[in-house]
């Protein structure tokens, strides 16, 4: 009898059916979160802000999925994802704010941002993707710094540290508006639009990427990562395949940037999109498992869950327990953030190098390693 576990053919019907159920469940459940939160708020007078956290996580997950396409699938060490995120956000800003003549609807900006960021990815990738991994890392890192500094210094265009704002509300059909506007809160309408968009995007991207994994292009990513020479012998065009991954990843990051800006109603200040931000996204796909779609989403949830939920909570508790001396490092838990991220990363690399929730392919060779 075969005792070889190896890889089940993931293209099987079972996984497709399961996937459909997950997608369906998400679609059915997610409209209720905002109302759930609203209900809690109405009853207790205090908001969990559950919906808000989910939006942040979803936007971050979109960004993580973009980076996963570049780093996880195509094996391109990209250290400047924040630049494409910023390009998406600023495209949205320029296309919507009152300062500029375009004043497109949010929807227009959402459609345009991926193109602008994708084009930037193409322009950066075309001449540099032939470079070996470590050089590419340096090029992307440099590019991200250039973008950030330009955003700071081109004040006439970007409004410098103030950021472009306010980004207007999205257009919604009147019946939807009135149906949704239960609390007579205008912000609520915008928020709901962003909420549905962000969570819907994660679901759509999840399905897209899972389909991609089974496609010819998806296979050629795996092949290329394993052995470039052998892939070329099989007819895979290495440069083109990498460029597709890089540009598509950049476009999705730009889309995430557009979502981000319309969620915040501002592009935020240029320094938001710094090297740390790129590293955060990288951390989150490494923690989740490089090349794993579900891992990237989990990673985003873990990192932002820590930042937005656990950290404020613990801070509150600490402040209650200690004297209110704000010079005490214990005073704010978020001071420990990088220490904890770093430690978590080291621990994961040591004990679970393939991530918390690796893809089937990687998980299969994890089992071999153990046996």
């Amino acid at each position, binding site marked *: 009898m075969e005792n070889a576990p190896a890889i089940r053919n993931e293209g099987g019907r079972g996984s497709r059916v399961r996937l459909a159920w997950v997608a369906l469940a998400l679609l059915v459940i997610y409209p209720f979160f905002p109302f759930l939160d609203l209900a809690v708020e109405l009853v207790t007078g205090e908001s969990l802000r559950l919906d808000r956290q989910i939006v942040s996580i979803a936007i971050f997950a979109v960004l993580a999925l973009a980076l996963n396409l570049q780093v996880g699938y195509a094996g391109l060490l990209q250290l400047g994802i924040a630049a494409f995120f910023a390009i998406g956000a600023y495209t949205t800003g320029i296309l919507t704010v009152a300062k500029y003549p375009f004043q497109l609807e949010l929807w227009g900006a959402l459609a345009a941002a991926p193109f602008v960021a994708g084009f930037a990815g193409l322009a950066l990738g075309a001449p540099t993707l032939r470079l070996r991994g470590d050089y590419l890392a340096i090029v992307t890192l440099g590019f991200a710094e250039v973008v950030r500094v330009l955003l700071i210094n081109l004040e006439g265009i970007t409004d410098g540290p103030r950021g472009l704002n306010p980004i207007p509300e999205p257009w919604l059909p009147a019946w939807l508006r009135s149906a949704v506007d239960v609390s007579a809160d205008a912000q609520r309408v915008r928020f709901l639009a962003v909420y549905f968009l962000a969570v819907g995007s994660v679901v759509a991207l999840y399905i897209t990427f899972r389909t991609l994994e089974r496609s010819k292009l998806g296979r050629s990513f795996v092949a290329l990562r394993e052995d470039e020479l052998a892939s070329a*012998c099989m*007819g895979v065009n290495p440069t083109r395949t990498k460029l597709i991954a890089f540009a598509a990843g950049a476009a999705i990051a730009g889309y995430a940037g557009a979502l981000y800006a319309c969620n915040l109603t501002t592009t935020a200040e240029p320094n938001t999109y710094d090297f740390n931000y790129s590293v955060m996204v990288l951390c989150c796909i490494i923690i989740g498992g490089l090349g794993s779609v579900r891992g990237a989403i989990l990673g985003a949830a873990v990192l932002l869950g820590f930042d937005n939920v656990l950290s404020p909570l613990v801070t509150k508790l600490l402040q209650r327990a200690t004297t209110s001396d704000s010079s005490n490092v214990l005073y704010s838990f978020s001071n420990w953030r990088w220490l904890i991220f770093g430690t978590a990363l080291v621990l994961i690399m040591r004990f679970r190098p393939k991530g918390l929730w690796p893809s089937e392919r990687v998980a299969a060779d994890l089992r071999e390693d153990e046996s």
Partner: protein
Amino acid sequence: MALLELENVSASYGSIEALCNIDLHVEAGEIVTLIGANGAGKTTTLMTTSGILRAKSGRIRFDGKDLIGVPAHEVVGLGLAHSPEGRRIFSRMTVLENLELGAFGRSDKEGIQKDINRVFELFPILGERRHQAGGTLSGGEQQMLALGRAMASRPKLLLLDEPSLGLAPLFVHRIFEVIRELNREGVTVLLVEQNARMALKLAHRGYVLETGRITLTDTGENLLKNERVQSAYLGE
């Protein structure tokens, strides 16, 4: 006209000259073997032919087309499959996925299925392991997979770089048998082998490569009888 023709081909790695004015041709339907000591330039010859390395000078013609400047991934589509040295199978992909990748440039689903079934017929063990990750196969099975993967593109010409490397005699025999079988079905083969005796027995013709130059060429039979070949490559 020869199916493959190398004329005055030179190639180098930086300043290291690896091939020096190679002339070589393979007729349709032949098995031709390239023998030589370690570092003679056998692998380099195949890599230059399939476009992984760029020839410094000379002409390479395949099936009436000029191959100089054609990148490796396009060469496959012309009907020239290169199975590189050292197996290089995709270890995280299943056996079946490896074979499907071999047929990457093809779109005739039925034809691909037929050719993959043919590989399973020739190497039944691969059929049994079709859903197993390539990396979990034994060395010999991996060699079979590498050969099968190259067949999956349904090539006119197969470039095989040491397909029996590191295999036990039983496996070596099986691989050679399959090469003969494929050749009977009309596939032309250019074979690089350390196992010179078996290669020369199998091949119609052979070339001897010494430090980047072709020093001898004859029929396989005659090369087996050649004293220089016997002392240098057959260990007699």
